[in-house]
């Protein structure tokens, strides 16, 4: 009997059910879309913030002081200390290795070279990775300087890291240097190799220019070579001067600023296992012998604030959406019950108990909320995915449906629908059935 009543109610009052259903559907669509956007906004904005470059820098612990003004070495240091390039693959073994999204080692060198026209020039060169696998594993991160400097504008192509072998390489040159020396893509020059092992002078080495890069800073005056080539030309095998690391981090809080060596073992464990920039830097120091790692505060601190503000805004707007949708849905439910006072009166005069009537109405409401809520969840997820793809660059790895949201959204729809219809059901049950039946006649 109960189920028949329930079914009949859905079949006979299609218009009324549709109105309430649409209200729930729209409400859950909006709430799902907002929640789906709010939960992914952190990652998305972090990807956008990558344009600011590395947030951790690694350099040799025994380093001499940089004497740099405006990015230019005023007094080139002699007898520099270096990190080993072969140690960099250890970055793939630290606790938060998966949070490392970019690695870019640098080796500045001075190049004495002869151009194709026979002119002798002094150049300042920078050895970099362009498209380099961090470890030898199949799924290794492939990274390099272009990924960490998205604002660099290249004309031509990045140099291939394998071209030339021991007799030559490819390079790109900064735009200011290119116009000063009248070099263009396709030109080449021959650097003088160091005389360290006697026969090196006899070897000829040719660097071919494959592109011209504009960076807006001092790199415009440099030659960018593959790291291996820079090590040959500079006579510094396996050497790296500094490494820029870009990592996904958790914004710094008071706990992150603590000195890990003064914490209790348990606290140290917690500190170590959180992706703070400080803890990742600490793990890099542990992994690479003789390395000093520091967070780049300009990037790290500011990114944290921006990330917190934008995702905070999305959460608060989601809360506002939740509140508004809740109001709208409960108003719609209240109206839907109010309309059916006569029905309630009739059922009571036919002997139905208050409890049975309330149960019938709640069952209807619940069924409606679950059905409309599920459809709304699907619509909302689709909408969020579409909106996200329109606004942010998508790398295809993001799932459209977030299964955690389904129970949350349906539960919210249930609560709001039940809460919205309760006052009307109560009011209708309190009134004497004969009054209801007579009042409109």
């Amino acid at each position: 009997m109960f189920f028949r009543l329930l079914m009949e109610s859905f079949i006979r009052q299609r218009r009324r059910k549709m109105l309430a259903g649409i209200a729930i559907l729209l409400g859950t669509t909006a709430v799902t879309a907002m929640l789906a956007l709010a939960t992914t906004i952190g990652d998305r904005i972090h990807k956008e913030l990558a344009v600011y470059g590395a947030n951790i820098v690694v350099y040799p612990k025994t380093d001499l002081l940089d004497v740099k003004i405006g990015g230019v070495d005023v007094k080139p240091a002699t007898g520099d200390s270096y990190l080993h390039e072969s140690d960099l693959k250890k970055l793939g073994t630290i606790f938060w290795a998966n949070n490392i999204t970019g690695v870019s080692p640098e080796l500045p060198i001075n190049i004495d070279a002869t151009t194709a026209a026979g002119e002798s020039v002094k150049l300042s060169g920078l050895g970099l990775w362009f498209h380099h696998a961090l470890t030898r594993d199949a799924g290794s991160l492939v990274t390099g300087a272009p990924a960490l400097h998205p604002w660099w504008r290249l004309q031509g192509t990045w140099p291939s890291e394998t071209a030339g072998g021991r007799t030559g390489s490819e390079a790109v040159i900064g735009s200011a240097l290119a116009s000063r020396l009248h070099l263009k893509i396709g030109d080449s020059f021959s650097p003088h190799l160091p005389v360290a092992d006697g026969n090196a002078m006899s070897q000829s080495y040719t660097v071919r220019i494959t592109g011209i890069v504009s960076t807006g800073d001092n790199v415009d005056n440099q030659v960018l070579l593959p790291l291996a080539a820079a090590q040959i030309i500079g006579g510094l095998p396996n050497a790296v001067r500094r490494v820029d690391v870009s990592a996904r981090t958790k914004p710094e809080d008071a706990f992150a600023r603590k000195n890990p060596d003064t914490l209790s073992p348990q606290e140290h464990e917690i500190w170590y296992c959180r992706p703070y920039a400080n803890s990742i830097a600490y793990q890099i120091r542990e992994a690479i012998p003789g390395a000093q790692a520091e967070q780049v505060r300009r990037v790290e601190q500011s990114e944290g604030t921006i990330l917190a503000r934008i995702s905070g805004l999305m959460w608060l707007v989601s809360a506002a959406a939740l509140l508004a949708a809740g109001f709208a849905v409960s108003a719609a439910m209240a109206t839907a019950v109010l309309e059916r006072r006569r029905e309630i009166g009739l059922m009571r005069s036919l002997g139905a108990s208050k409890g049975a009537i309330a149960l019938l109405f709640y069952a209807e409401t619940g069924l409606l909320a679950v059905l409309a809520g599920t459809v709304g969840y699907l619509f909302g997820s689709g909408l969020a995915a579409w909106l996200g793809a329109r606004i942010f660059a998508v790398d295809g790895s993001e799932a459209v449906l977030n299964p955690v949201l389904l129970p949350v959204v349906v539960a919210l729809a249930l609560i709001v629908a039940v809460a919205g219809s309760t006052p009307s059901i109560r009011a209708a049950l309190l009134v004497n059935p004969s009054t209801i039946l007579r009042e409109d006649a």
Partner: protein
Amino acid sequence: MGRLSMTGMMRRSLVHRRSRSLSALVALTVSAAVATALLTLYADLNAKLHTEFRSFGANVVITAPASGVLPADALARVRQAAGADALAAEFGYAVANTDRGTAVVVAGTDFAAVRQLDSWWQVDAWPAANDADAALLGQRAANFIADERSVTLTFDGDPVTLHGVGRLRTGGDEDSRVYMPLAAFTRWTGVGPSVIQVQIPGGTATVDAALVRLRQALPGMQVKPVRELVEGESRIVDKTHALMYGSVLLIALTVAVSVLATLSASVLERRRDFALMKALGGSQTQLMGMFLMEALILALAGVAVGFVVGSAAAWVISEENFHTATLPHVSVLPLVLLLNVAIAVMAALFPVRALRGLQPAALLKGE
């Protein structure tokens, strides 16, 4: 007489069915409040986000050419050209030797300006404003200084003793430098400021316009934007803006349709009134006008309450998230009014159209 009875009917209608009028009013208030809150936040969003991006520091760097120096009034000219809300700090650089004989870059600057401009600097303590020979030691530079309390530096054979107030940590070039007040720096080295860092709040267009003004104000000087900052800021602000725009539309639409559904259901419910009035000789137009007036009154009341509630909500959200207040924007009022009136008119007209074909007699009989 006709006008009077109209207002009388209106008042009766609103007062007599108090609970129903109230729920319609609540629905319209919610829609107005949501629209007001979101539009107010949206109107302020760009300014607020650009304020947050100030924490990245200078986005324009002005450098004297290698042979020349900055004009004496350069900073004043920069301030004038860049606008009142721009931050600027000047720097002079020289290479000196520490007490251990290591070469170190010494920078002269105005600590008060740097503290505002470079908020990410982590220092043990900022030097007092009247402290003429204070020094901040970069954490790497400090390793090459024997006595961090009283730092002796030599420039061109000319020694100076500064008292170090603390270490400076940034993770950048600053770590390898020693910072001191500009006046003492110039007195000691004879070198004037050669670099001015400027922070201009705003997107690419604003910064580009400021660059043109700065180049005019300082002919011969290199005026360069810090490209990654300017581009990144514009991109992120634009994307957040687009995201908010999508959210505002979505939420406003949802609430509008839900409210519309609720309202039209409650109008539909009154078909008995409709039939009675028609039976008593009311014309279709009169009845429509009656329903419309009622809905409009509710809509206006909804806007009045909703604007206050929505502005308050925007203020709370903004205070909570950005720690700055968002004041009510009267400029959003027309849009909110339009939205609410549109909802009310549609809610009143849809059911009336649906009821037009019905026979009053059949309705009154209860069919």
